[in-house]
Protein backbone atom coordinates (compact mmCIF):
# COMPACT_ATOMS: atom_id res chain seq x y z
CA UNK A 1 0.00 0.00 0.00
CA UNK A 2 1.28 3.43 -0.89
CA UNK A 3 2.40 5.65 1.93
CA UNK A 4 2.19 9.39 1.82
CA UNK A 5 3.46 12.29 3.81
CA UNK A 6 0.96 13.77 6.21
CA UNK A 7 -0.74 16.96 5.12
CA UNK A 8 -1.99 18.77 8.19
CA UNK A 9 -5.52 20.19 8.27
CA UNK A 10 -5.50 23.76 6.96
CA UNK A 11 -1.96 23.47 5.54
CA UNK A 12 -1.84 25.32 2.22
CA UNK A 13 1.85 24.63 1.57
CA UNK A 14 1.23 21.04 0.53
CA UNK A 15 -1.32 19.35 -1.69
CA UNK A 16 -2.85 15.95 -1.03
CA UNK A 17 -3.44 15.75 -4.79
CA UNK A 18 0.32 15.86 -5.27
CA UNK A 19 1.41 13.78 -2.30
CA UNK A 20 -0.83 10.84 -3.23
CA UNK A 21 0.72 10.50 -6.67
CA UNK A 22 4.23 11.01 -5.30
CA UNK A 23 3.56 8.21 -2.82
CA UNK A 24 2.56 5.99 -5.73
CA UNK A 25 5.89 6.55 -7.42
CA UNK A 26 5.42 9.54 -9.70
CA UNK A 27 8.46 11.81 -9.96
CA UNK A 28 6.34 14.95 -9.68
CA UNK A 29 9.15 17.37 -10.50
CA UNK A 30 9.99 15.43 -13.65
CA UNK A 31 6.33 15.27 -14.61
CA UNK A 32 5.97 19.04 -14.27
CA UNK A 33 9.00 19.54 -16.55
CA UNK A 34 7.49 17.20 -19.12
CA UNK A 35 4.17 19.01 -19.02
CA UNK A 36 5.86 22.40 -19.43
CA UNK A 37 7.85 21.06 -22.41
CA UNK A 38 4.69 19.65 -23.97
CA UNK A 39 2.72 22.82 -23.26
CA UNK A 40 5.44 24.83 -25.00
CA UNK A 41 5.27 22.51 -28.01
CA UNK A 42 1.48 22.79 -28.23
CA UNK A 43 1.66 26.56 -27.87
CA UNK A 44 4.35 26.79 -30.55
CA UNK A 45 2.43 24.48 -32.87
CA UNK A 46 -0.60 26.75 -32.69
CA UNK A 47 1.66 29.62 -33.69
CA UNK A 48 3.93 28.06 -36.27
CA UNK A 49 2.28 25.10 -37.88
CA UNK A 50 -1.30 26.04 -38.03
CA UNK A 51 -1.18 29.76 -38.31
CA UNK A 52 1.85 30.59 -40.45
CA UNK A 53 1.90 27.33 -42.38
CA UNK A 54 -1.84 27.46 -42.96
CA UNK A 55 -1.47 30.96 -44.40
CA UNK A 56 0.85 29.50 -47.03
CA UNK A 57 -1.47 26.83 -48.35
CA UNK A 58 -3.04 29.03 -51.01
CA UNK A 59 -5.01 26.98 -53.50
CA UNK A 60 -5.41 24.10 -51.07
CA UNK A 61 -8.49 25.33 -49.25
CA UNK A 62 -9.41 21.85 -48.03
CA UNK A 63 -5.95 21.44 -46.49
CA UNK A 64 -6.34 24.82 -44.83
CA UNK A 65 -9.48 23.62 -43.12
CA UNK A 66 -7.74 20.49 -41.84
CA UNK A 67 -4.88 22.64 -40.57
CA UNK A 68 -7.45 24.84 -38.85
CA UNK A 69 -8.89 21.81 -37.05
CA UNK A 70 -5.41 20.80 -35.91
CA UNK A 71 -4.53 24.36 -34.89
CA UNK A 72 -7.62 24.75 -32.73
CA UNK A 73 -7.16 21.33 -31.19
CA UNK A 74 -3.53 22.04 -30.32
CA UNK A 75 -4.70 25.28 -28.73
CA UNK A 76 -7.24 23.28 -26.75
CA UNK A 77 -4.42 21.00 -25.61
CA UNK A 78 -2.37 23.96 -24.42
CA UNK A 79 -5.32 25.26 -22.42
CA UNK A 80 -5.89 21.81 -20.95
CA UNK A 81 -2.29 21.31 -19.84
CA UNK A 82 -1.71 24.64 -18.09
CA UNK A 83 -4.15 24.10 -15.19
CA UNK A 84 -2.59 20.70 -14.48
CA UNK A 85 0.91 22.24 -14.30
CA UNK A 86 -0.27 24.65 -11.60
CA UNK A 87 -2.26 21.98 -9.77
CA UNK A 88 0.93 19.96 -9.45
CA UNK A 89 2.74 22.95 -7.95
CA UNK A 90 4.53 23.98 -11.13
CA UNK A 91 4.38 27.17 -13.13
CA UNK A 92 5.06 28.52 -16.60
CA UNK A 93 8.25 30.51 -17.27
CA UNK A 94 7.62 34.23 -17.02
CA UNK A 95 9.64 34.79 -20.18
CA UNK A 96 8.21 33.76 -23.53
CA UNK A 97 11.64 33.06 -25.12
CA UNK A 98 12.50 30.88 -22.10
CA UNK A 99 9.20 29.05 -22.52
CA UNK A 100 9.90 28.58 -26.23
CA UNK A 101 13.30 27.05 -25.42
CA UNK A 102 11.61 24.50 -23.15
CA UNK A 103 9.62 22.97 -26.03
CA UNK A 104 10.35 19.28 -26.47
CA UNK A 105 9.66 19.36 -30.22
CA UNK A 106 11.19 21.29 -33.06
CA UNK A 107 9.72 24.71 -33.83
CA UNK A 108 8.19 24.04 -37.22
CA UNK A 109 9.06 27.17 -39.09
CA UNK A 110 7.87 27.75 -42.63
CA UNK A 111 9.95 25.49 -44.89
CA UNK A 112 11.97 26.86 -47.78
CA UNK A 113 10.55 26.57 -50.36
CA UNK A 114 7.06 26.56 -48.78
CA UNK A 115 5.58 23.95 -51.11
CA UNK A 116 2.53 21.97 -50.11
CA UNK A 117 4.62 18.79 -49.88
CA UNK A 118 7.21 20.47 -47.65
CA UNK A 119 4.50 21.92 -45.42
CA UNK A 120 2.65 18.61 -45.11
CA UNK A 121 5.92 16.82 -44.33
CA UNK A 122 6.64 19.32 -41.57
CA UNK A 123 3.13 18.94 -40.15
CA UNK A 124 3.38 15.16 -40.18
CA UNK A 125 6.69 15.11 -38.32
CA UNK A 126 5.36 17.63 -35.81
CA UNK A 127 2.42 15.38 -35.01
CA UNK A 128 4.76 12.43 -34.63
CA UNK A 129 6.83 14.32 -32.08
CA UNK A 130 3.63 15.14 -30.19
CA UNK A 131 2.63 11.47 -30.17
CA UNK A 132 6.00 10.48 -28.75
CA UNK A 133 5.89 13.26 -26.14
CA UNK A 134 2.40 12.40 -24.89
CA UNK A 135 3.15 8.69 -24.89
CA UNK A 136 6.05 9.47 -22.55
CA UNK A 137 3.66 11.25 -20.18
CA UNK A 138 1.28 8.30 -20.33
CA UNK A 139 4.17 5.95 -19.49
CA UNK A 140 5.18 8.08 -16.51
CA UNK A 141 1.67 8.32 -15.05
CA UNK A 142 -0.02 5.03 -15.95
CA UNK A 143 -1.51 3.37 -12.89
CA UNK A 144 -0.25 6.14 -10.60
CA UNK A 145 -1.71 9.51 -11.57
CA UNK A 146 -5.14 9.02 -13.15
CA UNK A 147 -5.83 12.72 -13.65
CA UNK A 148 -2.68 13.47 -15.68
CA UNK A 149 -2.92 10.13 -17.46
CA UNK A 150 -6.50 10.84 -18.51
CA UNK A 151 -5.51 14.26 -19.85
CA UNK A 152 -2.47 12.90 -21.70
CA UNK A 153 -4.47 10.04 -23.20
CA UNK A 154 -7.15 12.44 -24.48
CA UNK A 155 -4.55 14.64 -26.12
CA UNK A 156 -2.72 11.60 -27.49
CA UNK A 157 -5.95 10.40 -29.13
CA UNK A 158 -6.16 13.61 -31.14
CA UNK A 159 -2.46 13.72 -32.03
CA UNK A 160 -2.78 10.21 -33.44
CA UNK A 161 -5.73 11.34 -35.55
CA UNK A 162 -3.73 14.35 -36.77
CA UNK A 163 -0.89 12.08 -37.85
CA UNK A 164 -3.34 9.97 -39.84
CA UNK A 165 -4.70 13.10 -41.57
CA UNK A 166 -1.25 14.23 -42.68
CA UNK A 167 -0.21 10.75 -43.79
CA UNK A 168 -3.29 10.72 -46.02
CA UNK A 169 -2.63 14.17 -47.47
CA UNK A 170 1.12 13.74 -47.93
CA UNK A 171 0.74 10.31 -49.53
CA UNK A 172 -1.73 11.84 -51.99
CA UNK A 173 0.30 14.95 -52.78
CA UNK A 174 3.79 13.50 -52.85
CA UNK A 175 3.32 9.89 -53.88
CA UNK A 176 -0.05 9.85 -55.63
CA UNK A 177 -1.16 7.11 -53.23
CA UNK A 178 -4.36 6.63 -51.29
CA UNK A 179 -3.72 5.95 -47.59
CA UNK A 180 -7.02 6.84 -45.90
CA UNK A 181 -6.95 8.30 -42.41
CA UNK A 182 -10.15 6.43 -41.67
CA UNK A 183 -11.73 9.55 -40.22
CA UNK A 184 -14.71 11.64 -41.14
CA UNK A 185 -14.58 15.43 -40.94
CA UNK A 186 -14.88 17.17 -37.61
CA UNK A 187 -18.40 18.32 -36.80
CA UNK A 188 -17.17 21.88 -36.43
CA UNK A 189 -13.72 23.50 -36.77
CA UNK A 190 -11.41 22.36 -33.96
CA UNK A 191 -14.05 20.13 -32.42
CA UNK A 192 -11.42 18.35 -30.26
CA UNK A 193 -13.69 15.37 -29.55
CA UNK A 194 -11.44 13.96 -26.86
CA UNK A 195 -9.80 16.94 -25.20
CA UNK A 196 -12.31 19.76 -25.46
CA UNK A 197 -15.91 18.75 -25.72
CA UNK A 198 -15.75 15.99 -23.16
CA UNK A 199 -13.59 17.64 -20.58
CA UNK A 200 -12.83 15.86 -17.37
CA UNK A 201 -13.43 18.99 -15.34
CA UNK A 202 -15.73 21.99 -15.42
CA UNK A 203 -13.67 25.01 -16.44
Amino acid at each position, binding site marked *: MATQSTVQPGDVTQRVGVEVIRARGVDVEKLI*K*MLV*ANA*AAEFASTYYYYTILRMNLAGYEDYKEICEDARLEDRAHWELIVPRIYELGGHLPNSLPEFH*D*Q*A*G*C*VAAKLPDPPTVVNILTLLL*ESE*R*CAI*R*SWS*AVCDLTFGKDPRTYDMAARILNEEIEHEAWFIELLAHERDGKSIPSGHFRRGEPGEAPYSKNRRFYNP
Partner: protein
Amino acid sequence: MHRTGMTRERSFRVVLETPEGIRSFDCSEEEYIWDASAVNGIVLPAICHQGRCLSCAGRLLEGTVEHDHVDAYFAEDKTAGYILLCRALARRDVRILTHQEWKMREHRLAKGLPAPYA
Protein backbone atom coordinates in the same frame (compact mmCIF):
# COMPACT_ATOMS: atom_id res chain seq x y z
CA MET B 1 35.19 -0.03 -40.73
CA HIS B 2 33.48 -2.44 -43.13
CA ARG B 3 32.14 -2.15 -46.65
CA THR B 4 28.79 -3.79 -47.22
CA GLY B 5 27.34 -5.52 -50.28
CA MET B 6 27.74 -4.14 -53.80
CA THR B 7 27.28 -0.57 -52.69
CA ARG B 8 29.94 1.72 -51.39
CA GLU B 9 28.07 2.12 -48.11
CA ARG B 10 30.37 1.76 -45.14
CA SER B 11 29.60 0.51 -41.67
CA PHE B 12 31.31 1.10 -38.36
CA ARG B 13 31.55 -0.70 -35.06
CA VAL B 14 29.51 0.95 -32.33
CA VAL B 15 30.24 0.13 -28.69
CA LEU B 16 27.74 1.40 -26.14
CA GLU B 17 28.41 1.67 -22.43
CA THR B 18 24.88 1.35 -21.01
CA PRO B 19 23.68 0.99 -17.42
CA GLU B 20 23.08 -2.67 -18.26
CA GLY B 21 26.60 -3.23 -19.54
CA ILE B 22 28.62 -3.04 -22.75
CA ARG B 23 26.74 -3.66 -26.02
CA SER B 24 28.13 -3.52 -29.54
CA PHE B 25 26.93 -3.79 -33.13
CA ASP B 26 27.72 -2.64 -36.66
CA CYS B 27 26.05 0.51 -37.93
CA SER B 28 25.88 1.74 -41.51
CA GLU B 29 27.10 5.23 -42.25
CA GLU B 30 23.57 6.19 -43.30
CA GLU B 31 21.76 4.88 -40.21
CA TYR B 32 21.22 6.86 -37.05
CA ILE B 33 22.97 5.20 -34.13
CA TRP B 34 19.74 5.19 -32.10
CA ASP B 35 17.91 3.36 -34.92
CA ALA B 36 20.69 0.81 -35.30
CA SER B 37 20.62 0.23 -31.55
CA ALA B 38 16.88 -0.47 -31.69
CA VAL B 39 17.35 -2.89 -34.58
CA ASN B 40 19.88 -4.71 -32.42
CA GLY B 41 17.45 -4.95 -29.49
CA ILE B 42 18.97 -2.16 -27.42
CA VAL B 43 16.29 0.24 -26.21
CA LEU B 44 17.79 3.65 -25.50
CA PRO B 45 15.92 6.68 -24.18
CA ALA B 46 14.40 9.04 -26.75
CA ILE B 47 11.29 11.13 -27.18
CA CYS B 48 11.32 13.64 -30.04
CA HIS B 49 13.60 11.89 -32.58
CA GLN B 50 14.32 15.37 -33.92
CA GLY B 51 17.57 16.13 -32.11
CA ARG B 52 15.75 18.51 -29.84
CA CYS B 53 14.64 17.13 -26.48
CA LEU B 54 18.03 15.75 -25.28
CA SER B 55 16.46 12.49 -24.03
CA CYS B 56 18.79 10.41 -26.23
CA ALA B 57 21.97 12.21 -25.18
CA GLY B 58 25.21 10.29 -24.96
CA ARG B 59 28.87 11.08 -24.47
CA LEU B 60 31.31 10.28 -27.26
CA LEU B 61 34.27 8.52 -25.66
CA GLU B 62 36.07 7.46 -28.85
CA GLY B 63 35.60 7.98 -32.57
CA THR B 64 33.72 10.50 -34.67
CA VAL B 65 30.04 11.16 -35.37
CA GLU B 66 28.22 13.61 -37.59
CA HIS B 67 24.80 15.04 -36.75
CA ASP B 68 22.21 15.02 -39.53
CA HIS B 69 19.11 17.26 -39.53
CA VAL B 70 19.54 17.98 -35.86
CA ASP B 71 17.37 20.76 -34.46
CA ALA B 72 19.73 22.17 -31.90
CA TYR B 73 23.35 21.13 -31.46
CA PHE B 74 25.89 23.67 -30.36
CA ALA B 75 29.66 23.99 -30.56
CA GLU B 76 29.70 23.85 -26.76
CA ASP B 77 27.99 20.45 -26.89
CA LYS B 78 30.65 19.08 -29.22
CA THR B 79 33.47 20.48 -27.11
CA ALA B 80 31.99 18.83 -24.01
CA GLY B 81 31.66 15.51 -25.86
CA TYR B 82 27.86 15.30 -25.87
CA ILE B 83 26.04 13.81 -28.85
CA LEU B 84 22.39 13.19 -29.73
CA LEU B 85 22.05 9.55 -30.68
CA CYS B 86 18.72 9.92 -32.50
CA ARG B 87 20.44 12.07 -35.14
CA ALA B 88 24.05 10.90 -34.92
CA LEU B 89 25.74 9.08 -37.79
CA ALA B 90 28.96 7.17 -37.13
CA ARG B 91 31.91 8.32 -39.19
CA ARG B 92 34.47 6.04 -37.55
CA ASP B 93 34.26 3.19 -35.07
CA VAL B 94 32.80 4.76 -31.92
CA ARG B 95 32.47 4.15 -28.20
CA ILE B 96 29.61 5.98 -26.48
CA LEU B 97 28.44 6.38 -22.90
CA THR B 98 24.62 6.33 -23.05
CA HIS B 99 21.90 7.75 -20.75
CA GLN B 100 23.43 11.21 -20.41
CA GLU B 101 20.24 13.26 -20.80
CA TRP B 102 20.30 14.92 -17.40
CA LYS B 103 24.05 15.56 -17.53
CA MET B 104 23.60 17.20 -20.92
CA ARG B 105 20.75 19.33 -19.61
CA GLU B 106 22.95 20.49 -16.72
CA HIS B 107 25.66 21.33 -19.25
CA ARG B 108 23.18 23.28 -21.40
CA LEU B 109 21.88 25.23 -18.42
CA ALA B 110 25.40 26.04 -17.29
CA LYS B 111 26.12 27.42 -20.77
CA GLY B 112 22.85 29.33 -20.99
CA LEU B 113 21.67 27.16 -23.90
CA PRO B 114 18.20 25.68 -24.53
CA ALA B 115 17.57 22.66 -22.31
CA PRO B 116 14.12 21.14 -22.92
CA TYR B 117 12.70 19.25 -19.91
CA ALA B 118 15.28 20.88 -17.61
